[in-house]
């Protein structure tokens, strides 16, 4: 569904020197596939997400969605950020309907869908509450509903559980898989956490920084539905080790041998 062909993205910093956010990345993502993108800071994960969304254009190379080149923002997408950024003057329901309004569609026709999504996300009864009345995890659930209400074919998530505590984070991961089970979409999930990347996805894309490059694309060998116990599965460990080795390889480059 998504095709990234030799993408390079370079920014110009204030001082004028170029920042190579991404260099020569090629990737193909299938319909309804859950792909996680993992790598250390500065490896270009967020930039890649913005390229797919059409929010930025590549310096070189082409982004294609279903065969069509993406040069403008692609509206059939839902985006979830690290912070929920809900509108504080709107209720939960109105926040979910924000997508509909901004797309220029009629909110009334989507009200039922919004309500069922809110219920699906475990927030039944909170439709009329305001963001400040909700916990961080709940706000992020609203953000996910907002990203799903217009039934996009693509969901882009930029470290959506990064700001949550470890327990909520784990819970939210499984919530996401449950939601995905109900309505299958293509998901591109960016994370810092290697276990999270493996546990949730069909495939894991590993990137290394400076410049952002694709180091590895890994097929996750674990069956669905995923469970917490799978973290102890030997295949999980293998994947985890492989990814870790790749990411930390740079840091542990052996120092040149000292002459005696």
């Amino acid at each position: 569904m998504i095709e990234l062909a030799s993408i390079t993205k370079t920014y110009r910093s204030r001082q004028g020197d170029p920042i190579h956010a991404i260099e020569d990345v090629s990737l193909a993502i299938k319909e309804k596939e859950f792909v996680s993108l993992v790598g250390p800071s500065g490896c270009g994960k967020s930039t890649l997400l913005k390229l797919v969304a059409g929010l930025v254009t590549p310096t070189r190379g082409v982004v294609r969605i279903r065969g069509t080149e993406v040069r403008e923002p692609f509206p059939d997408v839902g985006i979830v950020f690290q912070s929920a950024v809900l509108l504080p003057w709107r209720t939960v329901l109105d926040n979910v309907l924000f997508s509909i309004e901004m797309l220029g569609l009629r909110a009334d026709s989507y009200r039922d869908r919004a309500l069922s999504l809110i219920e699906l996300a475990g927030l039944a009864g909170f439709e009329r509450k305001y963001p400040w009345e909700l916990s961080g995890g709940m706000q992020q659930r609203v953000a996910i509903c907002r990203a799903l209400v217009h039934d996009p074919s693509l969901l882009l998530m930029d470290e959506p559980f990064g700001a949550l505590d470890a327990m909520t984070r784990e819970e939210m991961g499984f919530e996401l898989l449950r939601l995905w089970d109900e309505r299958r979409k293509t998901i591109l999930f960016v994370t810092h956490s290697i276990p999270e990347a493996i546990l949730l996805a069909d495939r894991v894309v590993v990137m290394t920084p400076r410049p952002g490059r694709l180091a590895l694309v890994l097929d996750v060998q674990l069956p669905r539905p995923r469970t917490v116990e799978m973290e102890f599965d030997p295949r999980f460990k293998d994947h985890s080790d492989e990814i870790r080795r790749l990411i930390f390889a740079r840091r542990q480059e052996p120092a040149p041998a000292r002459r005696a």
Partner: protein
Amino acid sequence: MLLGTLVVWEITWRIFKIPLFVVPLPSGILAETWAWRGYLLTHSWVTLYETLAGFALSIAVGTPLAVMLVYSPVLRGALYPLLVVTQAIPKVAIAPVLLLLLGAGEVSKVVIAFLVAFFPVVVNTATGLAATPPELLDLSRSYRASRLKTFIKVRFPMALPFFFSGLKVAVTLSVIGAVVGEFVGSDKGLGYVIVSATSYWKSNLAFAAMLLLSVMAVGLFALVELVERVVCPWYALAREQGEVVEELSVKDLEKVRAAAG
């Protein structure tokens, strides 16, 4: 605390026997306020009118200016330095010149009030408009929403708390601006009353006028806060949610436990 200050004031006078024409007593001021109430009311209206007109003008001019500054980097580069320069010049210094240009009537006072008030409106509103979380702007862009729609539904409401901060500062400055104008040359308004009363050593009356000015400034400020609470309640409510109302002492806890049985 206010009452305490007033009591100390009265006592200090009695001990040191400060002449009444230098610093009058609170009791004296209040008596004078009542005695001259008609006169003071007439002049209060004038100052109030000048203040409100200047304030309204600062909003009418300042807000569109703020919008332009945020949306046009070109205008920002051109106008911002100009704005800073106009603010750096003390209005007290410009006031006499303005009175020469515009006469000693109310217009000159309105202009001075406007000049002091519009900078906080511009700066605070612009800051508010620029403070929209970039994620929301990205989201709006991904939905291909027009810039106008993004402004109305996202940027503008987000900026309202900042806008009101600016208004609160501006309204108090408007009062000052109007009074400064009256000091420089006027035959109406509370500023005029202060100048004329002090020149006749009628300190009670001068203080009475000052009292009314304070009431006016505080009252206008409270009014803006009230409007803020109505228009953008989420800001205050979000703040309040996070507050601990009262610490429970062990005694209170025991009471609660006893009541639960």
